């Protein structure tokens, strides 16, 4: 089952990149995808058994992305104003942020969301504690409000 899903996802990509629909290229695609599936299927999906939760999670993840984009644009404008203002009123510091997330995937999603939102970079994760380098007080407060963490926790159904 795992093999089939990985194979289908990869084959979709092959068709997208190839753009040729004759038998020769399609069969080349089957060979290549089978090779990649054989080599690294356990990289792509690591858990032993699949549960239908994955479908729900990916739907919620797709819903999460537009909100993230909106946040990225908002805070990018904030950083742009910091860059363009002559005095450069920045006050960088490293803050600690204790998280309640558990699973690997949610930790990584949250870390990359923090990094993508300008003004904050995840510098390290140690024992469920994020070390975040924040550019100014405003973005640090935004992060401490915890809205983003709640959204990520909602995706992966963690409380």
């Amino acid at each position, binding site marked *: 089952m795992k093999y089939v899903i990985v194979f289908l996802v990869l084959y979709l990509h092959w068709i997208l990149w190839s753009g040729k629909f004759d038998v020769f290229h399609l069969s080349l695609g089957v060979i290549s995808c089978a090779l990649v599936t054989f080599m690294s299927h356990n990289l792509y999906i690591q858990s032993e058994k699949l549960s239908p939760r994955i479908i729900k999670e990916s739907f919620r993840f797709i819903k999460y992305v537009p909100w993230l984009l909106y946040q990225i644009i908002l805070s990018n404008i904030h950083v742009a104003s910091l*860059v363009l203002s002559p005095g450069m009123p920045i006050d*960088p510091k490293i803050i600690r942020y204790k998280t309640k997330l558990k699973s690997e995937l949610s930790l990584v999603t949250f870390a990359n969301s923090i990094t993508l939102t300008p003004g904050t*970079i*995840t510098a390290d994760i140690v024992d469920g504690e994020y070390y975040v380098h924040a*550019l100014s007080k405003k973005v640090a407060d935004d992060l401490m409000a915890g809205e983003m963490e709640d959204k990520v926790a909602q995706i992966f159904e963690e409380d």
Partner: protein
Amino acid sequence: MIVITIAVALIVAGTFFFVTATLGLLRFPDFYTRMHAAGKGDTLGALLSLAGLALYNLNNGFSVEAILISMKILIIALFIFIANPTATHAITKAGLVCSVKPWEKKESSK
């Protein structure tokens, strides 16, 4: 026509973020703060520019080839969206491990 207008607006917005990213890269005082400008401004700039290009590509009608090319552009954008923050994080962690001191406001005022 309206599609072209939106596409051009997206590309111009992307270029604007590229400009602020580069200015930040030049102006900020230390390595961590430069990372803020370069890592994220570039990501958003690339996303907006590539989205604009994908939209522009569709204005001549919806043939299969045009849709495939737009999807390819979106895949590149997705790759940048995933890969760039990871690279940023990797360099920041390298800086921490190498114990590069972060710049702070107080030091500059005294």
